[in-house]
């Protein structure tokens, strides 16, 4: 099967946090999903960057849509601002989920062939899964 796989964009205030979560999610899911880390500001400080989110959405899209995970609430503002300016905003879902668990769960579901709604739902269900 060569069906398109849902892409993932991880938006964090920290470039290292986004890159680390992307690395972990890729390893756990077997490396078949495009995961783009959009962390930090354009000049490398802590914060979020509309330009990085914009680029991430384009790089992650392969025809099945993109699920975006923000690390903290204020990253949502950046993502929403970017989505308002895009014509393909319906192919992007913003998931309300814990960052690391959501990234791993979303990526595994994408790797298994889940559609954009299933991938976003997997991320959001992460909130309810106990680890102890």
């Amino acid at each position, binding site marked *: 099967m060569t069906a398109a796989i849902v892409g993932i964009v991880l938006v964090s205030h920290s470039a290292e946090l986004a890159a680390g979560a992307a690395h*972990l999610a890729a*390893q*756990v*899911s*077997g490396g078949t999903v495009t995961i783009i880390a959009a962390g930090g500001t354009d000049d490398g400080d802590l914060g979020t960057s509309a330009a990085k989110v914009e680029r991430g959405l384009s790089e992650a899209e392969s025809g099945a849509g993109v699920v975006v995970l923000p690390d903290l609430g204020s990253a949502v503002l950046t993502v929403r601002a970017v989505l308002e300016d895009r014509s393909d905003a319906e192919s992007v879902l913003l998931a309300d989920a814990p960052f690391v*668990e959501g990234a*791993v*769960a979303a990526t*595994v*579901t994408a*790797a*298994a*062939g*889940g559609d954009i709604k299933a991938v976003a739902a*997997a991320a959001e*269900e*992460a909130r309810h*899964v*106990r*680890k*102890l």
Partner: protein
Amino acid sequence: MSANCEQENCEQVITLAGDLHARPAGTLAVAAGRFAAAVSVTAGSHTADAKSVLGLMGLGATSGQHVTVSAAGPDAREAVATLITILTQATKVGGLLRNQADRCTW
């Protein structure tokens, strides 16, 4: 040993050769997600949806523990066989390794 099946319900027990860490849990969940059948993994008193990587990791399944894979649906037999194979490979020393010299520790 093969799975016990009754119509569209199958299950098989395996003894883990290693702990169920993140990467094998991911491999299991990706494989389980491709089947139509509902698939679950039970370790001790805990049962997880095999399509949920976080649920599988939350089982805390460890080496030597008996684990049951159950499936219900049209492809239950294939689902159980596939997951048992992954559990056998992924948790044994030398299984599913890329960089580590010893068994997967995460």
